[in-house]
Every structure is written in C-alpha cells, then in structure tokens.
C-alpha cells in the first residue's frame, strides 16, 4: 500500500515551535488543513502523549503523533512537520525531535497498512535526517515516495 497523497497543506517545513505540544499541534494543523481531521483530533493526539508519555518518539529525531480513529477523523491522512530547532518530547533515548508525522486513520486495519508502509520507508536510517534537512515539498514527497494530489504541481510551494 502506498501512503496517501501529501498535499502542500499537510506539509510544514522548518517551522519554529517552543515545545512538543506546539510541534504536535502543527502536525494536527496539517491534518486539519488538508481535510483529514477536525480540530478535536489534534487535542486527542496531545492527550495520548500526556497520558502515556513520549513513546510516540519511535526513533531518534522522529515522532509519530496519532490517536485512535474517531468521529473527528474525516479521511485517512498524513502530515509532515519539520522543525527549525528540534524540541524535546521527554523520550530518554530519541530526543530531540526534528520531524513530526501526524497520522489519522478511520479504522485500525487501515492504520496497519499505513504504518507498514512507514516501517518500510524508515527502516532506512538515512530517511529521518534527510526529511529534517529537506527544504521543499518535492524533497519531502520524494523521500516518502508519495505524490502531489491531482491538480497540485509537485514541488511548488505556495
């Protein structure tokens, strides 16, 4: 399975955030802007980390923000946020985080297929630093093996 299309609205490159909450909020904003979720989902992603800790930081420099499926998930979606200055999430080994992926799925099964694709991608250890260093949407899409949605030129930033 391929990852979903990654519209420009789901990508934020080199943004400045003060802390992990702002970083996850930025990933949630990407999901909201691209029509994947309602704003309630962003809060639920933060709640998961408040409840269970920074386990979403699953590799050095990478957080996979997500929550359970729910009525605030309109369609499956992925957002990508890279940070100008990495922030700590509180993970003992994988801090600081420079890339935050926001993930929203409508069913658990869908999720499994999506994360399987993510696992295939990120088993290559070069991908996280390359994403962190990417300077445009085309670079991000190329690293993730995804395309621009129909009607949106690949790599053109608004």
């Amino acid at each position, binding site marked *: 399975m391929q990852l979903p299309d990654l519209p420009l609205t789901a990508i934020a490159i080199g943004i400045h955030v003060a802390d992990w909450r702002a970083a996850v909020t930025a990933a949630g904003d990407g999901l909201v802007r691209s029509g994947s979720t309602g704003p309630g989902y962003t809060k639920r992603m933060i709640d*998961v980390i408040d*409840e*269970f*800790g*920074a*386990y*979403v930081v*699953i*590799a*050095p420099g990478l957080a*996979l923000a*997500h*929550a*359970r*499926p729910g009525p605030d998930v309109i369609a499956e979606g992925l957002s990508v946020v890279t940070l100008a200055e990495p922030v700590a999430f509180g*993970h*003992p*080994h*994988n801090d600081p985080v420079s890339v935050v992926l926001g*993930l929203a*799925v409508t069913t*658990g099964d869908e*999720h*499994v297929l999506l*994360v*399987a694709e*993510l*696992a295939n991608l*990120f*088993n290559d*250890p070069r991908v996280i630093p390359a994403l962190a260093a990417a300077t445009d949407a085309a670079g991000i899409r190329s690293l993730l093996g995804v395309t621009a949605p129909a009607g949106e030129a690949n790599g053109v930033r608004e």
Partner: protein
Amino acid sequence: MKIVALCGVGVGTSAILKMNAERALARLDIDAEVTATDVASVQTVGADAQVILTSSELVAHIGKTNADIVVIDNYFDLDELTTKLEDALG
C-alpha cells in the same frame, strides 16, 4: 511462542514494532506469533506471552506480568530488535 508489541492506543506504533519484530524473528529463524495491542488490553492479550516489546515510556503501564519486558529504543532498527529478541529468547 507468543510475543506482544505494545503501544499506548493500539492503533499506533505497535504495528511498526510488530512488523519489524517479525523481520527480526525471521533473521533469527525463530517461529513466533507477534500480536499488536494497547495498554488497556495488554493484561488480557499478554497473559500467555513470553515477551512484551514496548517503549521505555510504557513499561510502567504494563502492570504485573510473567513475560519478559523488552524495551526497544529505535523501532526501525532491526539490529537492535534482533539483538534484544535473541537475548530474551535465547
């Protein structure tokens, strides 16, 4: 043999952990069933598990278990998974 991959909400990172644990087990030529689950279900799903794979952040949420708890730092590092699974199962 049963191995549980644990994450906070069960629709999350446990699927990545499960997939890469299966790859590590294939490397080790060990035949085991890997099940992904969440904190709420780990006591039930993990009752007969030999190993629970998870993040350091979630260890305190597991509660009492007879399984070996194996903490994985980098979910994408097959070498780490292979070494730690070999230690736990060897």
